[in-house]
């Protein structure tokens, strides 16, 4: 098992003339046995971070520790780290059995023991029936399981997955997510999962590290990221369907603080505590973030509103998607979305009242985009 600690890690790619700062002063700790996801859009530095942990990429500055042992100068094998690749990277000329036993062969493990290990791992991954085949003859899902197996067979200290789901069909992906979770529960290994898909990251990981243009934005559990995003980027990146944002000004502080969307009648009421923090920040311009799931249709006799507010808007588009309905609404020229019950039969142009709880209103500083209240 291993506890991984990155302290002030940087990666600078130098190519003729210009340098690209791919990872900036990264501090991240993955506890022993924990499942951490590194999430971010393409080009945010997550893959460079991964390759520095594995040892495929040289570390420009800063240190990587495995159980408090500095591993900067050790190659992947010495770090006892295993990796499953996005393109599976199976050895095309080996059968599946050879693919699985090769890491052990490199370590000089005797043939008999290798065969035993390969067979019971194949059972765990349900790939016993394809051991004799070549990678070229397998489906995406099967190849992906074999690539997981090749990484697991060495019983590594750390198990790293690099965008392993990006080539899997949507409906197969659900099963795969469950399987990965099951494998983690059964083996209890320290696992790092790199992906650009927030659904995968939030589904699998105990904690998620969100990165954007080379810097770590926030590390936290699903609820922390969901309820207390550190800035607009995290609030926008996490959440399905995407979060609604409104540029606003602080209209009045005090007990019933109000935020007003610029020169419109659209106002958002927040809790007194939030009001105090907004006033204390001394800023006037803010951005309000409200998730579609937190906007509830104001059914007559619906649950009474705890401290919160009401929005009136006109329905622009009613998207019925089976399990739920996504309403696209317009209020004072601002277009936003709300999520409603599947049987919502609202047509285009109907006026609607939407209720929200103040606790669900996120307020960010307009300039720094940091979360204020």
């Amino acid at each position: 098992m291993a506890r991984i600690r990155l302290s002030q890690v940087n990666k600078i790619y130098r190519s003729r003339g210009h340098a690209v700062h791919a990872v900036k002063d990264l501090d991240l700790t993955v506890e022993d046995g924990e499942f951490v996801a590194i999430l971010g859009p393409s080009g945010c530095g997550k893959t460079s971070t991964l390759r520095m942990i594995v040892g495929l990429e040289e570390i420009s500055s800063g240190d990587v520790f495995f159980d408090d042992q500095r591993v900067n100068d050790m190659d992947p094998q010495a770090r006892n780290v295993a990796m499953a690749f996005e393109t599976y990277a199976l050895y095309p000329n080996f059968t599946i059995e050879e693919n699985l036993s090769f890491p052990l062969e490199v370590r000089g493990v005797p043939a008999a023991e290798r065969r035993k290990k390969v067979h019971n791992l194949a059972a765990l991954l349900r790939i016993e029936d394809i051991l004799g085949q070549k990678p070229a003859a397998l489906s995406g899902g099967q190849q992906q399981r074999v690539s997981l197996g090749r990484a697991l067979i060495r019983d590594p200290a750390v198990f790293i997955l690099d965008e392993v789901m990006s080539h899997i069909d949507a409906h197969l992906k659900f099963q795969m997510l469950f399987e990965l979770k099951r494998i983690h529960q059964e083996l209890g290994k320290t696992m790092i999962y790199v992906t650009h898909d927030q659904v995968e990251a939030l589904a699998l990981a105990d904690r998620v590290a969100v990165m954007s243009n080379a810097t770590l934005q926030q590390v936290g559990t699903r609820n922390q990221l969901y309820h207390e995003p550190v800035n607009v980027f995290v609030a926008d990146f996490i959440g399905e369907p995407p979060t609604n944002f409104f540029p606003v000004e602080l209209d009045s502080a005090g007990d019933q603080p109000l935020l007003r969307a610029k020169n419109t009648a659209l106002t958002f009421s927040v809790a007194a505590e939030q009001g105090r923090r907004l006033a204390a920040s001394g800023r006037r311009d803010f951005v309000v973030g409200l998730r579609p799931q937190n906007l509830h249709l104001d059914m007559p006799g619906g649950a009474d509103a705890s401290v919160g507010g009401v929005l009136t808007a006109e329905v622009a588009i009613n998207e019925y998607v089976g399990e739920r309905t996504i309403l696209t609404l317009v209020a004072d020229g601002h277009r936003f979305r709300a999520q409603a019950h599947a049987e919502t039969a609202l047509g285009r142009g109907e006026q609607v009242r939407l209720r929200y709880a103040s606790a669900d209103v996120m307020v960010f500083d307009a300039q720094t985009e940091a979360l204020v209240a």
Partner: protein
Amino acid sequence: MARLQIEGLCKGWDFPVIDRLDLTVEEGEFFIVVGPSGIGKTTLLRLIAGLETADAGRIAIGDQDITTLPPYKRPVAMTFESYALYPHLSVFENIASPLRARRLDKAAIRQVVTEVAKLLRIETLLDRRPGEISGGQKQRTALGRTLVAEPQVFLLDEPISHLDAKIRHELRLQFHSLEELRRVATLYVTHDYAEALSLGDRIGVMGHGGLVQIGTARDVFMRPRSLFVAQHLGQPAINAVTAHLTGEGAALHVRAGNSSFGFPVVAAHAAALGRGGYRQVTVGIRPQHVKVLRNGEDAPGHHVIDGHVEIYEALGANGVLVADAGGVNLTALTSLERDFAHRQPVRLALQTDAVFYFHADSGDNLLL
């Protein structure tokens, strides 16, 4: 009157991919064909576009029979799943290509193309190459090329299914609001059921070489004609439990094999099932109709059963919980905020009036 009419269409290579398919898309209708990949959706589009030759059957647009016309003579425009943008030409030239083919004069082309580009908000990219723009922008360029052609039928092959979730939401709105797409018959193909339900005026679920069911989004989702349709719409997939019916008349009861899982059949369903005399059935319960009760909460009109958590994951818009309910694994949807530990006991409330009953062998919906 540019209605798209397809009668008895057949196409097969080593097995019949499309087998006597009938379909009519009215002028201005946005018809969506949904089905798993490899079922023959793209082949259907290629047959209408003329890129494949039909083995039998007739395709007509308005009253013009185009079954044997070559693609460049058909009043049709198509966006490819891979966008098929010309890598060596600028975005402007890509969009203008249909007009260049008709040898329109330069000024007219420039005017039309800039207008469409403004509509799709890609007017600033006109002199870039396809390789230099993002996935969403590539998709809009491909769409621009079809709009500019002003065909009598639009064919869209999985236009947005390869893009990130966020951009997909945005582009779905674009398809809702683009009036131009609503003037002519549009056939839109996708494997994503949510896209189909959200965009389609009418939806056709494709299977076994033809359209297994055609109807509005709510028809197809809430009143599936067969287990096949129900299983292909909805994420996570519908719970399908093989069970048998016990009891008589109004007091029918569902019992799943040798497990302790079962529930009383709702009166309305009992009447219909009773008349049919069915014993072996496949019960379909959508995860959204399985509520996970908080302690102390009860659910009027629901049948409550006990189970314990196998696995729980937050998947996008809501949590997905797989519970072992008396020997049968049931999938339930919960809100995102909740969290469950492994083997934690839970109380599940089944909305039994929304349950489906399918024929054990043919899979047909017994209540339709």
